[in-house]
């Protein structure tokens, strides 16, 4: 039984093992094979904040493995009546075998894990971390490049509030990535994260220039400027729409360079990019299913038999 709150909860070896397991689970994720490994288990899917892909892919992952899902959203539940997170989690502890939580407050996932006994998976806590997204991002990178070692990765957009980039950058530097952090000054990666990234000995470059970062990139990870995270709407208006990638911008890119995005996108990736060989964001969204299957099995202590995916 184990929680996943930040990428620090996984060693490099564990990350690679989970990716291997996820790869074997792809036929199950596609519905081409049935493997009821989690039959009789119940997932508590707790979304205190909007979600499309994360919530649906966790639900799909659980159901494809024969498990059941109980859902909670903050609208229409006792959360709206002012219940503390602690109290809500006590209920979940009684109703399910594993909890997935997304919450607008940072630290909510660790708090939940401390509050209850069943494993907790962090599906996004405010502007904090989003480790299950990182696992599917790493899966997507490995699927395209054959490795997650030593790549040149460019992260673009809202690096201040973007929890996907916080978790992903932490994982990538442990595999020797060179990181280029592209953002307007007001959305720079928080200082404590940049300090942590540099402490791994990786090269970390901060710039506002996306166009100049494309030619050398193996991966360009675009993110949305998240209106909902800005305390001040004027600040949002100043930077909204600052980065817009079109197919023409990719003319000088490496052949094998991939463009990723945790989605949803607004206008930062033009639809003209969708039909290029570089676009991987829809594949990336599918990869959430096998990756989250592997994470659910791991946290519930269920081994995926060798026959699966052979």
């Amino acid at each position: 039984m184990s929680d996943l709150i930040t990428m620090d909860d996984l060693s490099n070896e564990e990350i690679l093992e989970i990716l291997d397991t996820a790869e074997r689970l792809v036929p199950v994720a596609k519905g081409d094979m049935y493997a009821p490994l989690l039959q009789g288990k119940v997932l508590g899917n707790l979304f205190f904040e909007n979600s499309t892909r994360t919530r649906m892919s966790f639900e799909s992952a659980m159901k494809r493995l024969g498990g059941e899902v109980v859902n909670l959203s903050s609208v229409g539940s006792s959360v709206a009546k002012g219940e503390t997170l602690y109290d809500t989690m006590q209920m979940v502890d009684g109703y399910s075998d594993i909890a997935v939580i997304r919450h607008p407050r940072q630290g909510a996932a660790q708090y939940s894990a401390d509050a209850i006994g069943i494993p907790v998976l962090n599906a996004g806590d405010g502007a904090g971390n989003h480790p299950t997204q990182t696992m599917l991002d790493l899966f997507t990178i490995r699927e395209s490049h054959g490795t997650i070692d030593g790549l040149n990765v460019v992260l673009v957009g809202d690096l201040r509030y973007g929890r996907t980039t916080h978790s992903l950058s932490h994982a990538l530097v442990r595999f020797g990535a060179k990181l280029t952090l592209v953002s307007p000054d007001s959305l720079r990666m928080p200082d404590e994260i940049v300090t942590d990234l540099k402490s791994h000995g990786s090269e970390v470059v901060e710039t506002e220039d996306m166009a100049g970062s494309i030619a050398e990139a193996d991966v360009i990870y675009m993110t949305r400027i998240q209106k909902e995270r800005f305390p001040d709407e004027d600040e949002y208006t100043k930077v909204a729409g600052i980065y817009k990638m079109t197919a023409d911008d990719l003319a000088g890119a490496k052949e094998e360079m991939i463009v990723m995005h945790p989605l949803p996108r607004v206008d930062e990736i033009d639809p003209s990019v969708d039909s290029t060989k570089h676009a991987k964001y829809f594949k990336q969204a599918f990869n959430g299913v096998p990756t989250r299957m592997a994470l659910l099995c791991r946290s519930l202590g269920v081994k995926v038999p060798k026959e699966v995916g052979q």
Partner: protein
Amino acid sequence: MSEMRRVTAICNGTVVDHIPAGKALQVMQMLRVDIGRSNPISLVMNVPSGKAGRKDVLKIEDRELTQEELDRLALIAPNASVAIIRNYSVAEKRQIELGSELVNIAKCSFWNCITQNSREPLPHKLRVISADPLDLRCSYCGRSQSIEELAKSIL
């Protein structure tokens, strides 16, 4: 002969010596000895010190600070020395220790941390990432904490 005593010896209580110069008021805030009590408190600031050039000293009468209270000092005065005085003599010397985690000493100062909801019952926890330079992070949200902010959110 040593410099003339600026503050007289106390009969019973706690003496916190070798506080970094200028930090005594912050120490009082951290120890919460400045509110709701009537103990006499003597405070000297910026006096010459052989060790550090200048130092502050705090004498709190009729109150023996507990180890838990003293550990709060590690945040701003890790090298301070503490003596418990009984009947004008040093009865005990206490060490200040900065452990690996500070539990229920201060609240995380980040506005969007889950612990900002005062009704949430779990303890406030700060992890010590590094003692020198001091790097403290909330055990829940992971945010770095500034000492100035923490002094305002002492529990």
